[in-house]
């Protein structure tokens, strides 16, 4: 069974801090994703990566960056945290896209609060 593990379930940081959210998957998936989930807005894609050191911007990349140095690990970085980045962050992975979209496997999320 695919397991996507996010390093923290809850995180509290201060405005202006540099914040790292870590995600590890154990199924050798090529694709990895970072979403944020907010009430009334559903899930919005921040970044995705289709291979080591490769990344693509999603719908809301502003204020975020990502790092993928190893296939199993995908990090989301808040360069200078702001209160409007308080949210639930979800990581996901999937096999490479072939003739159809591959289902994504999600972690259980990190609830980040920026004070």
């Amino acid at each position, binding site marked *: 069974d695919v397991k*996507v593990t996010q390093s923290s379930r809850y995180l509290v940081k201060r405005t202006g801090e540099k914040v790292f959210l870590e995600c590890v998957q154990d199924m050798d998936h090529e*694709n990895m994703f970072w*979403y944020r989930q907010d009430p*009334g*807005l*559903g*899930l*919005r*894609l921040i970044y*995705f990566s*289709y291979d080591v050191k490769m990344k*693509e911007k*999603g719908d809301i990349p502003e204020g975020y960056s990502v790092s993928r140095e190893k296939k199993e690990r995908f990090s989301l970085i808040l360069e200078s945290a702001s209160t409007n980045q308080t949210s639930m962050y*979800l990581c*996901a992975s*999937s096999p490479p*896209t072939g003739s*159809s*979209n*591959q*289902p*994504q*496997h*999600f*972690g*259980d*999320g990190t609830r980040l609060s920026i004070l």
Partner: protein
Amino acid sequence: LAKTTQPISMDSYEGQEVNITCSHNNIATNDYITWYQQFPSQGPRFIIQGYKTKVTNEVASLFIPADRKSSTLSLPRVSLSDTAVYYCLVGVLNTGFQKLVFGTGTRLLVSP
């Protein structure tokens, strides 16, 4: 980019069939339709995916009309454990090009 619209909430009783519809009027030719289920404090979990017509698996059916402008997730004989938020996802993922649009979710409450 496809925009998806779902009802905010639905109520049902145990044993009933539940149909949740997602509207995606500007779906593109290559887009797939995927449904996910999410319980509190957990990440979404894949339920079913389709491109056109009908798809059925052990937990649900997905109905997609010929124009593909909407899709309906059908849950047969729901139980209390089906209480969750259901999301439709429309889009396609290709290297160098992606457009994945989640709906805002439908909160399903199943009562005894």
